[in-house]
């Protein structure tokens, strides 16, 4: 239990966007966040990352409320990869990943050889070593996403928050990013669209109209009834005869 919310909510102009979320992220797990568009997944991730302060309830990191904690200390524990963030600046891939070292550096602790090593490692983790000197604006959407993830890894967080990280990726890199996140020794919360990919998470949390309606193992969460109610689809599990693993077959609900 490193990251926890207590009745956390966020409202803008008194319109509640996320309300009454009680969530406990367990140490070392990969928690999938699923739910229809506009259900509040991105907003909840922003609350968890501390870049939005909850307007009700609270978010606790190792038992301490994020509100009132210096932004820098939060960033030493939590990294966020947002759904969309772009720049028009002429920066290289290496520059972008180096930004991840920001919370660890100061005027008295400038960028050192150790930081270089961490940046190289982060680039290698997302399979982008060869791109270090490429300019940002020459990258494809998927490559940019991998650089964002490398930047978050360079931050050396305890908790990694990813907002639809597989969105722009080809299928090979979708699978490798998820495998990478699963293999990292960090706790992660990942908003996902593909329910088959969500099956790979340790636990799933379902968001609906700003509320957390259900949390548990993929098996417990992705039941035919819930798929129909929450996602308006019919789902059935099929088994791959080659290795016995399960696939979720989805059809539009009638």
């Amino acid at each position, binding site marked *: 239990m490193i990251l926890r919310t207590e009745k956390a909510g966020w409202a*803008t102009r008194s319109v509640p966007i996320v309300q009454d979320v009680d969530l406990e992220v367990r140490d070392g797990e990969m928690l999938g966040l699923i739910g229809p568009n506009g259900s509040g997944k991105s907003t909840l991730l*922003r609350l968890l*990352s*501390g*870049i*939005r302060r909850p307007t009700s309830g609270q978010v606790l990191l190792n038992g301490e409320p994020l509100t009132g904690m*210096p*932004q*820098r*200390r*939060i*960033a*030493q524990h*939590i*990294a*966020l990869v*947002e759904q969309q*963030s*772009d*720049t*028009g*600046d*002429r*920066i*290289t891939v*290496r*520059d*972008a990943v180096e*930004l*991840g070292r*920001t*919370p660890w*550096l*100061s*005027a008295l602790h*400038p*960028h050192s050889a150790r930081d270089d090593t961490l940046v190289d490692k982060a680039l290698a983790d997302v399979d982008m070593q060869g791109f270090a*000197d490429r300019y940002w604006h020459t990258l494809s959407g998927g490559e940019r996403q991998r650089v964002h993830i490398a930047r978050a890894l360079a*931050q050396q967080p305890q908790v990694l928050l990813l907002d639809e990280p597989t969105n722009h990726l080809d299928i090979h890199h979708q699978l490798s990013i998820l495998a990478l996140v699963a293999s990292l020794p960090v706790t992660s919360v990942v908003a996902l669209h593909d329910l088959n990919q969500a099956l790979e998470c340790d636990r799933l949390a379902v968001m609906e109209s700003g509320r957390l309606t259900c949390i548990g193992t993929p098996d417990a969460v992705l039941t035919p009834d819930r798929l129909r109610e929450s996602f308006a689809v019919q789902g059935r599990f099929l088994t791959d005869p080659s290795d016995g693993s399960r696939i979720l077959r989805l059809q539009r609900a009638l």
Partner: protein
Amino acid sequence: MTDTVLNSTRHPRRRGWTWLWVVPPVLLVALFAGASIGETHIPFSVIFQTLGNKLFDAGFPVDRIDMGIVWNYRISRAIVAACCGAALALSGVVLQALLRNALADPYLLGISAGASTGAVAVTVAGLGAGAVSLSTGAFCGATLAFVLVAALARAAGGGAGLHAAGVIILAGIAGSQLFNALTAFVLAKSANAEQARGIMFWLLGSLSGVRWEDVWLAVPAALLSIAVCLWHIRALDAFTFGADSAASLGISVRKVQILLIGIAALATAVMVSMVGSIGFVGLVIPHAMRFIVGTRHRVLVPASALAGAIFLIASDIISRVIIPGQVLPIGVITALVGAPAFALILLRGKVSR
């Protein structure tokens, strides 16, 4: 060629801060040139001797008139030009980085419009009954305008994201329009042609009235803004992907925005109240420097400060010598040089945003 330049600056941190040694000699040469070139040419040796006499009582035999020109006019003028250039360029760097807008310049926040209103309020409308100088009036006007713009932006703002940056820019436009209208109103109502012409000249910027008293204001303002920017190079970099991304990298976005924008506004207000609103430095120099040294603020901040200082010293020299017997407003020169330079950068397609 450009690519080699960019390649060699790709990992500036590997070279550490050692390249900074170029700053003092380059700046000194520029200051000497500013003191030497003009309607009467004064050789470097005379400048050295004047400095020796004034600073160390060296007792060199120097022509009294030459010494007067160098010490009372040219040196103070060159120093103020350097300070203005550095401060305006850094204000541009800060606003472009924090507001994520390529068109942001130091006058965006209503400062120049407010300064002009303050100036006409004192000189034309007679506010302060002669006890207040034009500079003081301009500084008060600039500060008032910035405070109003900031308050409007704050009241209308939402969060710290792109939306907030847009709100600041819109509030700045509203504030500038209001204060420009007030200036025009006062001028139309009570100024004679002579006064109107004087104000127009002042608005275009001029270093003619600069004396040593101004140096004691310009130097601290410029040094403060250089120091604050250098202290925040990492924070400025962290805004590359926007304010939310900066927050997730551990930057206290609100605090940094208030401090850096406040310092940029203060330095700009000090400079404008002294020498009028010299255009194009704050817009063009940061872009030109990004083009040459890259976008990392570790290099961009010192490079922009130095380039801004040299650009204004050079523009001031040109404004003095281009038409014999007449001094052009320096703003005319900066725009005449700056606009084509900016167009060139745009056409090369290498503008940083």
